[in-house]
């Protein structure tokens, strides 16, 4: 919501500077996004009148102008623009002036002729044709500016002269005289020779770049001067006949006036972020109320006064029906006859522009003006198209069509509300008018509609048609039902003020629902108890009264103003008090009351512990998106019909890439590994504690299981590095009975380098090298390693708290053994055999070497273990140890066919 401070000052005078204003309003609850001094960058730019224009002696396209800028002496300025004429009022940037964009203007010479400044175009003032529609420039194709694309093949001869044919009915003609005819048009006298005699024609034209002696292309058939488009010419063929030029002012101003005041650029605009609970603040009046309360200034609101007296009796001309009263609680309308459509006055256009609304014509501008001022959307439609003199506010028929003002054909249904006449819809209620009843140049009689519609219906209609408008955005928040009448009266008052038509006496006002004012009890103790303050009852009442709350006869009660539908109970009153008492004046205290024993759950503690182990093993933590592309399941090799693919699917995703909730974290990890690989990061180790989302949870929700995912990639990284980390994790949580089983059929992993691991019979997770095809599908031609560990299973596998075991009192005996066995025998099997063979003295077994090659037969390997043997109650003798080792070796041979090397 933009606010013109000039407009605001009409209701409440506030002299604070922009920054102070913004700060105070923000702290009282109307958040200011930014402030803008519309003409802040413009200085020393004034209105000048062109006294005379001479062609530049040394240029084929420049003019030397003498201008009256309100000083004793005229000022000379050189310009290249062709759309100006003697007598024009134009913006003059004088010597040492500034323009938007930090542009500085100083005097200088242009081709040897002194120029004491610059004449400005709309854009040079930071404006455009939406601000000043009359600033649009229509350029005639001047034959004396013709530059052929190919100099050898000109379409128009260089020596063309009046009377020569250009093509068809188009002839060359000379401009003999140009003078303004008012209303932005020019009266132009053209001469040419025809039938060997001079022939003069006088016509009206929009073209602004005509001057005496110019040669134009004159269409004898249409009696018009040709533009570039008429000649199908390119801009570069007529380089100076451009649709740009100096902004020729049609404002009521005189030489020497500050251009900022003339163009309305002396206003300051404040942009507010209005929260959805305060639709009343989407208006100048609403913000004026807030500003008045904030700065403790009186508000001057104005009661619209309509003289009326237009010819006719309103009830005879117009009949309104509201067959769906719940969708249209109130419909208020007035009528204006004999309207004269034209531009609205400068002050109105300026205010509209400052608020970001484009001026169109007086009637449309009035509806917009009232909407901005009162926050009540208005609609004006052409009475002659209201067939049968009847307005019906009804549900649309299914399939009914309406072309809205923006030219789009809308297909409607019965959930939508339309404004209709006897036979057809003429507007989409609360959203946009219909093209069939649009205010046009020859509109004579106008109906002003000021209604209150059901917010939900408007919102749903706007949403389903994809056409949220200024009006619908207001209606959907719920507007003050009491506002329709003052608003329509204000519109009629403005019609009379602008002399835009004759307002009929009387108002059509259908009130289907009589609102009861909310009356609330003011409970100072409870308010103070909620806020933690000690605000006196008096101060509370003062604040509430400033905001329009009325005290009632009954003591301790207030009547909530009709525009404050958001205030419903004590807490709402407390907020009003807090806002103007000042949030920052509320004391700061620490919590009292019963202490609670907070802390982390066992699961949270486990997560913290796991993070610590991962980091101490060199893994960096990552965060990946929970939603993925369904194609990622293909990329990790999952079968098309794999049940694990069943995912929560987002119906309105940002894109296919983020459209389903992952049931595996693996592809997310691979994506990040691939990215780091592509960045040529070395020795990458990553972990994520993330969720997967499997269908089948309570209430139609998901089972959101947590997974610890490890990922690594690096030149020297191996399967055993990853396994070491997994083992460290399992050891850290004191998991028992841990086993690793080889898995050859997990589609995501290398068939020879993958293991599922268990604690007892529960599978905790998977680890391994990623299948080369999967790595390739992520664009990586290197070994990637991943592990996925279920948090739930880790929690289950978590061992009991440690209990102290006495340190050994007697020395241990170590023995190294190396056995030769078949290649197929696993180290795990050998270790099992060793444990089986030991007779109770074996404390530790650790692998220290696997050897293949010289001295060992093909297909065999030598595996060496270090054994630690110890008795708890005595020092072992060498013989006792040897006895055990003998038994171990026997078991190795028996179980695994492994022989001592």
């Amino acid at each position, binding site marked *: 919501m933009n606010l013109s401070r000039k407009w605001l000052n009409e209701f409440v005078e506030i002299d604070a500077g922009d920054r102070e204003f913004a700060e105070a309003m923000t*702290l*009282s609850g109307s958040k200011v996004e930014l402030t803008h001094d519309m003409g802040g960058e413009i200085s020393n730019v004034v209105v000048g009148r062109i006294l005379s224009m001479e062609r530049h002696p040394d240029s084929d396209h420049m003019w030397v102008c003498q201008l009256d800028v309100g000083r004793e002496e005229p000022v000379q300025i050189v310009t290249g623009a062709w759309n100006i004429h003697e007598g024009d009022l134009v913006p003059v940037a004088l010597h040492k002036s500034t323009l938007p964009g930090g542009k500085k203007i100083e005097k200088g010479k242009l081709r040897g002729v002194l120029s004491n400044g610059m004449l400005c175009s709309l854009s040079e003032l930071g404006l455009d044709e939406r601000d000043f529609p009359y600033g649009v420039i229509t350029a005639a194709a001047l034959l004396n500016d013709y530059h052929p694309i190919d100099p050898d093949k000109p379409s128009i001869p260089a020596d063309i002269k009046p009377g020569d044919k250009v093509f068809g009915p188009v002839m060359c003609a000379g401009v003999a005289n140009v003078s303004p005819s008012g209303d932005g048009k020019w009266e132009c006298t053209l001469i040419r020779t025809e039938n060997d005699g001079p022939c003069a024609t006088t016509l009206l034209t929009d073209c602004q770049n005509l001057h005496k002696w110019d040669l134009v292309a004159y269409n004898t058939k249409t009696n018009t001067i040709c533009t570039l488009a008429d000649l199908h010419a390119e801009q570069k063929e007529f380089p100076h006949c451009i649709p740009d030029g100096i902004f020729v002012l049609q404002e009521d101003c005189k030489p020497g006036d500050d251009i900022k005041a003339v163009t309305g650029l002396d206003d300051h605009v404040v942009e507010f972020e209005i929260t959805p609970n305060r639709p009343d603040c989407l208006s100048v009046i609403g913000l004026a109320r807030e500003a008045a309360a904030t700065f403790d200034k009186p508000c001057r609101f104005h009661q619209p006064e309509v003289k009326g007296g237009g010819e006719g009796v309103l009830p005879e001309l117009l009949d309104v029906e509201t067959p769906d009263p719940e969708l249209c609680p109130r419909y208020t309308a007035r009528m204006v006859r004999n309207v004269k459509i034209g531009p609205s006055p400068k002050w109105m256009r300026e205010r509209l522009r400052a608020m970001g609304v484009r001026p169109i014509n007086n009637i449309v501008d009035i509806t917009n003006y009232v909407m901005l001022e009162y926050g009540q959307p208005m609609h004006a439609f052409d009475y002659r198209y209201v067939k049968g003199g009847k307005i019906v506010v009804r549900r649309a028929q299914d399939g009914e069509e309406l072309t809205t003002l923006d030219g789009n054909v809308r297909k409607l249904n019965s959930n939508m509300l339309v404004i209709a006449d006897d036979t057809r819809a003429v507007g989409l209620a609360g959203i946009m008018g219909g093209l069939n009843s649009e205010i046009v140049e020859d509109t004579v009689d106008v109906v002003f509609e000021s209604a209150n519609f059901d917010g939900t219906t408007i919102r749903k209609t706007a949403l389903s048609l994809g056409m949220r408008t200024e009006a619908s955005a207001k209606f959907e928040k719920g507007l003050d039902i009491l506002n329709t009448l003052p608003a329509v009266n204000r519109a009629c008052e403005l019609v009379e003020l602008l002399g835009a038509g004759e307002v009929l006496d009387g108002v059509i006002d259908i009130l289907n629902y009589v609102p009861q004012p909310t009356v609330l009890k003011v409970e100072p103790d409870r308010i103070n108890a909620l806020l933690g303050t000690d605000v006196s009852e008096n101060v509370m009442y003062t604040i509430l009264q400033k905001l329009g709350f009325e005290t009632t006869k009954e003591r301790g009660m207030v009547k909530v103003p009709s525009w404050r539908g958001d205030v419903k109970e004590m807490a709402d009153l407390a907020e009003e008090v*807090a806002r103007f008492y000042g949030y920052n004046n509320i004391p700061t*205290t620490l919590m009292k009351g019963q202490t*609670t024993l*907070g802390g982390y*759950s066992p699961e*949270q503690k486990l997560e913290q512990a796991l993070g610590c182990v991962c*980091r101490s093993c060199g893994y960096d933590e990552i965060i990946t998106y929970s939603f993925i592309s369904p194609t990622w399941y293909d990329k990790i090799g999952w079968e098309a019909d794999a049940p694990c693919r069943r995912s929560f699917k987002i119906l309105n995703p940002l894109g296919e890439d983020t459209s389903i909730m992952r049931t595996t974290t693996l592809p997310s990890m691979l994506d990040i590994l691939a990215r780091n690989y592509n960045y040529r*990061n070395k020795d990458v180790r990553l972990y994520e504690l993330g969720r997967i989302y499997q269908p089948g949870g309570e209430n139609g929700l998901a089972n959101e299981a947590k997974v610890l995912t490890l990922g690594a990639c690096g030149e020297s990284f191996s399967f055993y590095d990853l396994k070491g980390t997994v083992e460290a994790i399992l050891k850290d949580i004191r998991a028992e009975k841990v086993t690793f089983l080889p898995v050859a059929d997990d589609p995501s992993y290398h068939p020879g380098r993958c293991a599922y691991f268990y604690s007892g019979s529960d599978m905790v997770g998977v680890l391994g090298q990623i299948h080369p095809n999967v790595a390739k599908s992520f664009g990586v031609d290197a070994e990637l390693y991943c592990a996925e560990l279920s948090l739930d299973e880790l929690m289950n596998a978590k061992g009991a708290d440690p209990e102290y075991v006495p340190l050994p009192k007697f020395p241990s005996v170590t023995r190294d053994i190396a056995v030769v066995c078949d290649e197929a025998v696993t180290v795990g099997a050998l270790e099992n055999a060793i444990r089986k063979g030991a007779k109770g003295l074996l404390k530790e077994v650790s692998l220290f070497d696997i050897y293949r090659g010289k001295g060992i037969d093909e297909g065999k390997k030598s595996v060496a273990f270090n054994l630690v043997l110890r008795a708890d109650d005595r020092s072992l003798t060498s013989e006792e140890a040897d006895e055990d080792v003998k038994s171990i070796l026997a078991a190795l041979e028996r179980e695994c066919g492994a022989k001592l090397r």
Partner: protein
Amino acid sequence: MKEQLAKIKSEAMTAFGAVASPAALDELRVRYLGKKGELTAVLKQMGRLSPEERPAMGALANEVRAALEEAIESAAKKLEEEALEARLKAESLDVTVPGKAPKLGHKHPMYRALDEIKDIFVGMGFTVLDGPEIELAQLNFDRLNAEEGHPSRDWSDSFYFDRDARVMLRSQTSPMQVRAMDSMPLPIRIIAPGRVYRKDEIDATHSPMFHQVEGMVIDKNVTMADLKGTLNLLAEELFGKGTVTRFRPHHFPFTEPSCEMDVQCHKCGGAGCPTCKGEGWIELLGAGMIHPNVLRMANIDPEEWSGWAFGMGLERTAMRRFKIADLRLIFENDVRFLEQF
């Protein structure tokens, strides 16, 4: 014999003084004190002396032996010291050569910021809650007093899983307030961090998935002043002692009064600069007193109990905390970024 002893002593002393290696010293020891050494040889002549001469000569011989032994000992000690010195010198290192670092992993900066916040609140007796991200719209909106028609319910703002808009990706951690009210005995002090989802395209300040932490207290006599006090404490813990905050009125459907807390811009100290877009303040979080409707819907009597709640974006907080300029870095997970924290 006396002369012989004196000669041995003086010769030996000179020799010991000049000895250069432990081996040479040992050789000298043998030469003078060994079984066939010079001193031993002299002592063997003792038998030839008269009984009167023997005691004096014996004493002298012992004296010489003691002197020699002492000399040997001190020479040995000296040699040892020299040897140690030489060894230490030889072993000296270039201490500026970088150490062999164990590779340590790094916590993600967002989680670093979150863990700080969790610790602050756990210290104040808060329980940390976890909850579902795929959530019922009823909990994400209705139970939080966001009526049908609230803009955040639009399909252009939130992600939905069914046409009836029953199940959605939570757009805020606030449904955890409801889950806590429904499942925990009063009084309640919780924080609930987690992922939330909104339909925003990815850019330098937006992401369709981000993290929030929700905080809520329900107790008797809880005031807005308590809320301010707690949040000020949080700001100081996160951004340092003396961090200046301000509270602005705002609107959330589930709190009344509602506020937003700003932290004074660390770059300009409130004067206004590009970091704070000229405002001097940076928005940190939204908060307020729990709306009586929200309490009522959870069967908690607002006449008896009151509460406050806040919600803050964690990426933003981490970005401010560590001066990270672009949100995309958070989810890009480039190790060169991660290993800075």
